[in-house]
């Protein structure tokens, strides 16, 4: 191969515009494939022409990188030793830094942190917030109130969210207390134990043969007559409650939760859950000391309740 001037020194490609034109041509070609054949053809021509020009320039070789400038000083004069010569710049003190270096470091860290925050915050919000927002309770239609015999208990199983019936099935103990001042009164006790949330069982016979299914807007509601003579008992750790849901014995920290209810067109509509500190009396004349819904195991009264000052939306 013929030696060209500058081959013995490192070479740098010359600044060139041809690759840019080539790239534009390729983009036009690809966009044209979707948009229009004319654009594609123009792109192909551009790419070919600029590609040819680029290739020709590469093939003709590069000019040599300029070597070190020839020494200005007379070749005979002895070089000035560094420690005697004048300093080009004041010596930096140990630990001293130039403002630009400091600025660049700060800018890099700052922009990095900003990018991190911009990416992390929405992701963390998406991971954590949906559980707290739009947690509206679903009203559940339990069917006509004439299905509930007066002063008799029923175990009622229903889907709190009919679109996810398989996972939102809940159970409540329902008793029709009869009329109070002309308004139907119900006692609706959640089966969720106030200890750690196991399902409490009725302390008495469940009449499985009399089980019936009521079809409502919320899907199938299962009703079984029951006689919880000994109140309600939790199978997990032995918490026990009386018929009004007051704690009698065992580890629970308060009584059983209850459901709000409504009578609409003669049908029993289940509302939100609330927690109960104490129930005095029984049936329709019971005095219920209500509080906001607490999770199982959380005290609702006394000094221990100060540990749970704020409840997330239920």
């Amino acid at each position, binding site marked *: 191969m013929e030696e060209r001037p500058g081959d013995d020194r490192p070479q740098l490609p010359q600044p060139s515009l041809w690759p840019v034109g080539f790239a534009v041509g390729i983009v036009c070609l690809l966009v044209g494939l979707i948009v229009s054949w004319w654009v594609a053809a123009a792109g192909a021509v551009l790419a070919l022409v600029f590609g040819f020009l680029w290739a020709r320039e590469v093939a003709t070789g590069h000019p040599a990188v300029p070597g070190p400038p020839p020494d200005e000083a007379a070749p005979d004069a002895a070089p000035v030793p560094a420690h005697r010569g004048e300093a080009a710049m004041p010596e930096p003190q140990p630990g001293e830094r130039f403002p630009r270096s400091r600025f660049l470091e700060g800018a890099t860290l700052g922009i990095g942190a900003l990018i991190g925050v911009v990416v992390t915050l929405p992701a963390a919000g998406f991971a954590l917030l*949906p*559980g707290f927002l739009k947690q509206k309770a679903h009203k559940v239609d339990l069917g006509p109130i004439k299905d509930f015999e007066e002063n008799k208990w029923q175990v009622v199983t229903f889907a709190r969210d009919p679109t996810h019936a398989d996972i939102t099935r809940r159970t409540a103990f329902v008793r029709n207390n009869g009329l109070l001042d002309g308004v139907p009164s119900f006692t609706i006790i959640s089966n969720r134990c106030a200890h750690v*949330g*196991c*399902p409490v069982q009725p302390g008495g016979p469940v009449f499985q043969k009399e089980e019936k299914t009521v079809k409502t807007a919320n899907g199938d509601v299962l009703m079984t007559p029951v006689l919880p003579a000994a109140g309600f008992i939790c199978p997990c750790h032995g918490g026990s409650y009386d018929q009004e849901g007051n704690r009698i014995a065992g580890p629970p920290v308060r009584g059983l939760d209850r459901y709000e209810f409504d009578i609409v067109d003669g049908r029993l509509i289940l509302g939100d859950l609330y927690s109960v500190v104490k129930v005095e009396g029984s049936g329709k004349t019971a005095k219920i000391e209500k509080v906001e819904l607490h*999770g*199982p195991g*959380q005290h609702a009264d006394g000094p221990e309740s100060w540990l749970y000052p704020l409840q997330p939306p*239920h």
Partner: protein
Amino acid sequence: MARAKSERRDKIQAAAMYPLDWLEERSGLVGGVRYFLFRKVPGDTSWWHTLGSATLTAFLVQLVTGVILAMYYKPSPAEAHSSVEHITHDLWGGWLVRGMHRWGASVFIILMFMHMGRVFLFGAYKYPRELNWIVGVLLLATGLFEGLTGYLLPFDQTAYWATVVAVNINGTAPFVGPYLATVLRGGAEIGPDTLSRFYSIHMLLVPGALMGLIGLHLYLIVRLGVTSPPWSKEAAGSEPEEVAPPARAGLVQPGPRAAGVRRRPTE
């Protein structure tokens, strides 16, 4: 003849070593692995010192079997249990891989506790290894959390109620408890998102954290060296009988500490 043979052997050796040399020159990985595997340990290490590697092996088994189970498991309330049944009863080898994952989880936890007990009884948590003890405790907590989140996944009655109870126990933590429980459930109640949430935590979030912590744990072990057992004749800081080289039992990594310099004067 012999010369020719050895020449050929040299050639073969060079050819065999070429890929390794290539890798070493570009990454330094071969030297790194060699450094990790052939580092010096005290002469009187015993079987007790293998509990940590055993725990790591159990973790790797969980990793591999878990990845395979994830190919067949469906984390939705309607399908989760039936897909686990499918894995166990219908798919070839499914019972084995699921069994390895299920029992391996217990093995992993038990080995973690045994390893922890060994470290405690050998006093291997003392200076300069306190930080590695702390990392180990974090590993224990994350490992237990891995067990908690994995327990829900078969989605049978045991899994469901155990998770209800576990989440509610979290909910009784002072002040933050109710919020912690809501974050774990992804809502006010266990709902359709809870299962996939636990699945994601179980197979992505916590294993990632575990791998990072294990990396840190191993780094500290390599940096600080393996502790000699308490019955070791070469008590840490003492000088062995031989003069050279200055072996420092308990802290055997070659370091800048000058030979013969004692950390503390003998009483």
